[in-house]
């Protein structure tokens, strides 16, 4: 039922003025999205009510906070730094754990119509499997394995750096479900040889990129700011890095859908990400400056761009610069 409504419903809600012939719908693997904006993992994605607000704000799909088997409090404050041209965070995978979150997710599946992608974290195959099973039981529309969080030992990047282990995780997850399986990678894994192995193991799509390992000092305090010292860089300054990663993945694997994430702050940024090859864009730290209005702003702006430049469907934009 929702599917039929998707564009119309969307335009009605937004009062999209110009032209109903513009098709903003996109898809990543088996997921159909009313528009290409996706809430990135770790951003407001830890409760049903927050996820619902983002749906109402106009997103095309939602990614949850990365969920681990046990609850994690994360690091003590400070966990966040505003650098002006970007942000640094070391939240430390703070999350309610798989059992608690599965209840939230069940509730969310009842109240929310757009696809929900659950981000799962783990420090072993068993942990990934445990979390994945809970999330699938609760109706998750797709899974995204976090191979790239740069600041939690034994998780994220530490797992993603072990290519064999990652291949096994992908194979086992694919063996328990036919729901789409994505990998959230960092620029460190954006090597063709590595991604080829992931894809051979059954991966259905790639989210790129996670934050980049970074550190901020306050010179007046003669001290690092984050309690964890090292954190992950996000925001405008990583956009050019993310564009290069998405560009190279698309060039090598044009059939693998890509969720382009990193520094998207405006419709123009989103269009750039789609031009280099993303089928959808993840939105994270833009919320700091623009708050939840960012989802509508970006979708509208993409529509406006398409109208002005004679594109009828998002599909024509995806990877456009590779075809010039």
């Amino acid at each position, binding site marked *: 039922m929702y599917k039929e409504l998707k564009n119309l419903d969307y335009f009605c809600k937004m009062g999209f003025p110009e032209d109903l012939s513009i098709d903003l719908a996109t898809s990543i693997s088996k997921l159909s999205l009313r528009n290409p904006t996706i809430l990135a993992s*770790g*951003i*407001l*994605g*830890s*409760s*049903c*009510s*927050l*996820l*619902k*607000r983002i749906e109402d704000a106009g997103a095309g799909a939602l990614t949850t*906070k990365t969920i681990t088997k046990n*609850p*994690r*409090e*994360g690091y*003590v*404050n*400070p*966990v*966040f*730094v*505003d*650098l*002006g041209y970007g*942000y640094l*965070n070391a*939240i430390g995978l*703070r*999350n*309610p754990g798989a059992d*608690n*979150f599965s*209840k*939230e997710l069940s509730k969310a599946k009842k109240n929310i119509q757009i696809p929900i992608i659950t981000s799962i974290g783990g420090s072993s195959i068993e942990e990934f499997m445990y979390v994945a099973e809970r999330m699938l039981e609760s109706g998750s529309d797709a899974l995204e394995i976090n191979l790239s969080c740069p600041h939690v030992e034994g998780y994220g990047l530490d797992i993603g750096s072990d290519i064999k282990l990652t291949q096994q995780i992908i194979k086992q997850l694919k063996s328990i479900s036919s729901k789409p399986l994505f990998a959230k990678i960092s620029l460190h894994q954006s090597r063709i040889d590595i991604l080829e192995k992931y894809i051979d193991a059954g991966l259905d799509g790639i989210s790129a990129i996670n934050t980049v390992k970074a550190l901020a000092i*306050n010179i*007046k*305090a*003669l*001290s690092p*700011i984050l*309690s964890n010292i090292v954190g992950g860089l996000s925001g405008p300054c990583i956009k050019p890095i993310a564009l290069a990663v998405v560009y190279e993945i698309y060039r090598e694997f044009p059939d693998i859908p890509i969720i382009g994430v990193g520094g998207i702050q405006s419709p123009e940024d989103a269009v750039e990400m789609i031009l280099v090859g993303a089928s959808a864009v993840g939105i*994270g*730290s833009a*919320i*700091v*400056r623009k*708050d*939840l*209005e960012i989802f509508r702003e970006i979708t509208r702006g993409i529509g406006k761009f398409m109208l002005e430049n004679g594109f009828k469907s998002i599909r024509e934009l995806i990877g456009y610069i590779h075809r010039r």
Partner: protein
Amino acid sequence: MNNRSSMNKPLNDEAGSIQLPRQTQSRYILGEVYSIRQLTPSIKEYTIKLEEEINPNPGQFAMLWIPNIGEIPLSFADYSTGTVKFIICRVGFVTTYIHRNILVGSRVFLRGPLGNGFTLCSLKNCLLIGGGYGLAPLYYLGRILAMNNCRLKTLLGFKNSSDVFYVSEFSEISDTYISTEDGEEGFKGTVVDMVRKILAEETFDIVYVCGREQMLMKVVKECSAKGMKTEASLERIIKCGVGLCGSCSVEPLGLRVCRDGPVFDGRLLLKLEDPLKNNREEICIKN
């Protein structure tokens, strides 16, 4: 941080309302502790000189960073030309460290103002209701409202007489009443009892509340029943402070204390199924 969520519209959009400038900056500003007052056995007041102006609105908060120790959210208890006051209650690791080790001359770091404060008005009849360190934002609010020729009444609730503080400060700007549960000072009972008594006789254009969530809820219910507008300041665990991480969500509303709040229209609170017993349960972790 500057946009009020549509669910949290100002109550008061008339020409009479005051608009202070808002800031979105989240970098640290250096401050030096200028003076410290012990207000009660567990509460101290810190006056801090900042290296630049920040101009917070009453009800907004700051993140106070003590390098190597931690960072905590605090309401502005007062502010004028680069000098800020905080009222800090000793409850755990960071606040205990501050009470013991932060002395006059110590350097601290502050990011803010963050969040949305109280709706400000002029020439109105306002009631302030607070308990414990909830007095902090109310005092700054009261001072600004008084400057704008509002008529103020203040009701402050404390457990025992040893917990009483800031009565003379409030008395200077408002008609102030206190309650203690043992009755050693002021009205005997809780602040909620006192509120009921006052509301039986008087009405107000707006009621501002800050304190424990269960107290807030009762006050909001009483006032709403009588059709009065209320605004209340809430607490949750603040991590990012800028509306990104979801840690401070007020469930089941999905409102962020750090960005949609900390001050909310009381009507929203009526939807809170289960007010927190103390303000510190970790929603994000517990769910």
